[in-house]
């Protein structure tokens, strides 16, 4: 029995989620596959977006998966790190922009 919440080997079992709800699982994977196909955005661009979001979601499976995906596409580590910074910038921006809410509240409450 694994003693950690996350087990790298579980990523391989992702597909098994269809076993307990076949229709929904299959629909999800079909949608997922479609999303990452070449479209108005290139598959390469989508891979970098996925990597950034994987970090903001802090999903270790997605981070592993999209780091590998990036390497397979010949994406450099500099490009990957910049993508992570984009995610981080939005994350911190999203935190800081709420500072305005705090300021509003202070201004409202203070005499």
């Amino acid at each position, binding site marked *: 029995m694994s003693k950690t919440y996350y087990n790298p080997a579980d990523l391989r079992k992702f597909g098994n989620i269809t076993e307990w709800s076949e229709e929904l699982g299959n629909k999800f994977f079909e949608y997922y596959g479609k999303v990452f196909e070449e479209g108005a955005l290139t598959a390469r661009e989508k891979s970098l977006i996925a990597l950034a979001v994987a970090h903001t979601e802090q999903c270790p499976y997605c981070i592993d998966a999209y780091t590998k995906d990036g390497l*397979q596409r010949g994406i450099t580590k500099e490009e990957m790190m910049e993508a992570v910074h984009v995610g981080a910038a939005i994350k911190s921006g999203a935190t800081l922009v709420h500072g305005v809410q705090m300021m509003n509240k202070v201004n409202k409450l203070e005499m």
Partner: protein
Amino acid sequence: MSKKSLLARNNDLANTKRQIEVLSNGQFANGELPTFAKKIAATNQFPLRPKKLEILQINMGYMCNQVCAHCHVDAGPDRKEIMTKKTMQECLNVIKKTGAHTLDLTGGAPEMNPNFRWFVEEAAKLGINDFIVRSNLTIIRANKKFHDLPEFFKKHTIHVVSSMPHWTRGKTDKQRGDGVFDKSIQALQELNAVGYGIPGSDLKLDLVYNPSGAFLPGNQKALENDFKKALREEFNINFNSLFAITNLPISRFLDYLIASENYEDYMYALVEAYNPEAVKNVMCTNTLSVSWDGWLFDCDFNQMLNLKVASKVNHISVYNEKLLQNRNIIINQHCYGCTAGAGSSCQGVVA
């Protein structure tokens, strides 16, 4: 990166039997993953059999000026096994009568064999006009005596196939050694200068990309576009096609996979990417591989695992095409590297 071959380092995996053991055990022994034999049997492709022989791939020796981390040949400057003139003569005798139309010269660095040019010239005299040379590019810059190789290649309209792991210096040098990128760029420019890879020219220059690590190559066309764009914009280099090749889990790459604890995941990834369609075109179906000392193999990979052809005729000195073509190809789990994704489309690999 080590500057020595596994053999010179007395590494356990220099023993090919040990490699076969690794490939046969673990996930494949406990049934977690299907063996390659089982997998191809599911689509009635077992046993794997040769089709029409088209290519003789001759390994001129394991000596090389580089010691790439992923090398499936375990080549390097410390490897002294190179083909003698006597064995070349035996190859020429076979070339006279074979149905194969293409001669594919590989190594190591085939150009380092002192009789390399002689051999090409003799084979050309016998009517071979379809030559492939797997050149690592840096050899052209390695020593003055190799500087005129582009001219020599041109003279015999040799199709040059060269590996280039990435269009950036960092990634290339990490896989192939410091300074390899700059020398490769220079060599490519020199090949372009004599007409190689130029649109409209009949001098073909293809590049082979293989991943520098424990991951599979991505979409070949997308990679080709990226390579073309980067090499043209930055260095004004042209080439014909890019082949994206999967690293097979043997020799130095196997050693790396095990040492970096990537072996298990890598084998999973290979099996997951298995494409039954690719089985039809694996290179062993139209190629025969000859080692530096004249033994015959289904492919260069089997050569490196010392898995000789399953035929009474297993040496170039007793060559008999009809008997040879009536054989089963020897397979093992490393074959999953040939059937991952779109498969290896360049009729073989550049080491």
